[in-house]
């Protein structure tokens, strides 16, 4: 280990970086790390994004593109409804990834867990005819929860028992989930009547998540799409916060994440913690899937997860793996997506730019020194690394 100088008596030692958790799931968040650095990161990402626009469409394309981005996200009830609508599954998936990070686990499988969860939710959604909405909705959401939980349990168990790193297993399970969806959506009984492409039967009206802004007067077809899922997501954010910081379970998860040896010494079961965290994480992602199929789409078709699971990784990092931060970041990413759609329609710039901007945001967040170096902001305490290599 590094041998820094030690002081005799009670004065602080200089030792090597505080353990790895600090970078991604820090305990103390000062205003610099919570507000300033992320804001600068977003700003820098937009600037670099502008460079890409120049390169592909020319200098003149920047302003219309970013204007469309902004109005599409924030201007008018319709935009706000869309932003929050898109943010809802991002909150849930982001919580899933953040919960994992707090326990030292990389859940790259939110996309697959969403897929399976959404699929099971849809099946529960079009079965159970005659069930009143007050029962059908919770049942369907629960189905999504359980579907995702299963898809999180598998890599959790593999990691806990065999040491198989969850980065690889969850990514593999993502691919497996997509193919499973393709297959299931063509099965009789699940496939929509009269269709030959993979698409599910529509969810019964009693299982659809009710809209909450329908009372607002707005022109355009159908009314505002924002639904109850947002409230469910916010409730889950509160629940995750309570779990992590006010319960014994949360203490164990955080301890296992920070130092599994000490956790074991303290009597905690590292195996149980890993399995539980991955399962709960998968369950949250599964709820995100259920949210999409029950609230927005009304059915399941291939690709319905729309890379939300991958965005969730970025926004968990941006939100420092803190439920509050996750909610704020999800709203930001929701704004980028909703605005991005408008940008794609109204300007020459395609929506893939948003992916680049998001990747840049993560880079700048993960390397705050980089942002500091660019803007000459004075240093804080983010340090450390998470990785323990390939096995426990």
């Amino acid at each position: 280990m590094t041998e820094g100088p030690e002081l005799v008596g009670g004065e602080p030692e200089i030792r090597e970086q505080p353990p790895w958790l600090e970078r991604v799931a820090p305990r103390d968040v000062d205003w610099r790390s919570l507000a300033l650095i992320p804001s600068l990161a977003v700003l820098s990402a937009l600037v670099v994004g502008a460079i890409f626009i120049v390169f592909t469409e020319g200098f003149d394309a920047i302003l219309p593109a970013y204007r469309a981005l902004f109005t599409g996200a924030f201007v008018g009830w319709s935009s706000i409804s869309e932003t929050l609508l898109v943010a809802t599954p991002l909150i849930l998936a982001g919580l899933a990834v953040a919960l994992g990070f707090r326990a030292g686990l990389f859940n790259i499988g939110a996309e697959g867990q969403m897929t399976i969860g959404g699929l099971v939710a849809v099946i529960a959604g079009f079965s159970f005819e005659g069930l009143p909405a007050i029962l059908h909705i919770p049942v369907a959401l629960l189905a999504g929860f359980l579907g995702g939980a299963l898809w999180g349990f598998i890599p959790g168990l593999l990691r806990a028992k065999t040491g198989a790193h969850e980065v690889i297993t969850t990514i593999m399970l993502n691919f497996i989930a997509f193919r499973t969806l393709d297959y299931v959506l063509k099965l009789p009984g699940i496939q929509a009547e009269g269709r030959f492409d993979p698409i599910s039967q529509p969810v019964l009206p009693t299982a659809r998540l009710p809209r909450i802004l329908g009372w607002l007067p707005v022109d355009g077809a159908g009314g505002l799409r924002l639904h109850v899922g947002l409230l469910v997501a916010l409730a889950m954010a509160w629940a995750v916060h309570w779990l992590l910081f006010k319960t014994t379970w949360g203490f164990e998860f955080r301890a296992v994440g920070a130092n599994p040896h000490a956790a074991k010494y303290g009597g905690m079961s590292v195996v149980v913690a890993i399995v539980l965290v991955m399962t709960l994480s998968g369950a949250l992602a599964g709820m995100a899937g259920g949210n999409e199929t029950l609230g927005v789409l009304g059915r399941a078709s291939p690709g319905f997860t729309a890379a939300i699971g991958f965005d969730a990784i970025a926004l968990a990092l941006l939100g420092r793996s803190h439920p509050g931060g996750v909610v704020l970041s999800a709203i930001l990413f929701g704004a980028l997506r909703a605005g991005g759609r408008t940008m794609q329609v109204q300007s020459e710039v395609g929506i893939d730019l948003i992916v680049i901007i998001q990747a840049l945001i993560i880079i700048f967040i993960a390397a705050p020194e980089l942002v500091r170096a660019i803007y000459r902001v004075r240093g804080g305490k983010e340090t450390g690394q998470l990785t323990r290599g390939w096995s426990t």
Partner: protein
Amino acid sequence: MRLELKNVTKRFPGVVANDSVDLTVSSGEIVGLLGENGAGKTTLMNILYGLYEADEGEVLIDGKQAKFAGPGDAIAAGIGMVHQHFMLVPVFDVTENVVLGVEPTRGPFGHIDIDEARDEVREISSKYRLAVDPDAIVEDLPVGVQQRIEIIKVLFREAEIIVFDEPTSVLTPQEVEDFFGIVRGLKEAGKGIIFITHKLGEMLEIADRIAVLRRGKIVGEAKPGTATKEDLAEMMVGRPVDLVVDKAPAQPKEVVLSVKDLVVQDERLHNAVNDVSFEVRSGEIVGIAGVQGNGQTELVEAITGLILPLAGSVTIGGEDITLASPRRLHQLEVAHVPEDRQRDGLVLSFDLVENLVLDSYYAKPYSRGIVMDWGEARRHADELIQQYDIRTPSAQLTASSLSGGNQQKLIVAREFARDTKLIIASQPTRGIDVGSIEYIHQRIVEERDDGAAVLIVSSELDEILALADRVLVMYRGKIVAEVPGSEATAADLGLFMAGAGV
């Protein structure tokens, strides 16, 4: 060759590690550098070796200033370092470790001439009587042999000044004698030697003269002929030090811990603990002496539930806990001060409150069901910090902000403050300052007098001799001797530690 450190000063944020240090070493002499943990010895040597850069002062070789940008420069200048923690790549063999960085090559692609390397290793090995097998894989070798490899490394690079940093911590008293023979041989061959240790007796035996470092400053020089251990201790710490622990004779009562025929495998599936049996009674301190690596670590881990034994049994107060978890042991009022405090005993990124309930959070009063009562935990923490004199401005700071001594006191506070039937402390005072050592020794004796059964495992013979009512010696996974504390001597124990009793 004449090496001089002149006015060397090195600062880190918040502390002056070296303060205007002057030190001179010439060929053919052994200079001892004495200081307690944290005095600045390693920092000074790291400056000498090019790993740090001094803020002020200079390093002179034969009168000319030398600037080292890195260890490469220091090596080229003829300075060799045998580190406290060996710098050997475990999966490489001896030859590869010796030549790393100065490999003999052939051809344009840098093909290593391994035969030439091997021959040269053999040559040095026989010339200085450092027996090693050039093809052995390092991780399979015992610690004493690994040390010889470090010395060969230094000689391979033709060092003129050799620094030994705490070289005897892994040796039995007999091996120390052999080692001193090697060191004297190097001195006769004309090498200049800097010998760093905190062990007073050894210093007096090997050094020609002794420089004492305290809080970064050289506070004086001593000559072995005239100075005593007490003198040295006082110079090291700045006040008279009681080298003996004050304790009344033990009054052991019923058996608390009973270990029978225990067999424990290590990571490489050898029997680290090979058929060990012993008992510890309430009101006595049993000390297990032995050089690190003879199975003590695995023994403690097996007893405390961190690993599972292969065979045998462990009972506490009659209950069989052979396969029990650390949680169960905690419920049975067993306290464990672990060997590696940073890895096992603390979560460095948690604050002091969280660390102080690390093993007791699961029950009342710190939690009810699944819900934590952090208020109660904070109260408990404030109380313990006061009681055990843990020096920190706040309980909300992370454990990483504490010094080594205070971290150990934190662990001791957590473990001793509750009702305990059995205390197991492994290397309880490793790497901490004298003040904390004294404090922890006192608390251990207090717990014993309160009726606890205490098991101490330590590779510091002085600690065992000071604390133990009964001494067991562990060698190659077996208990090879049992001696009452009052009759134990370093010489006898040393023989057992080297396997003489087998």
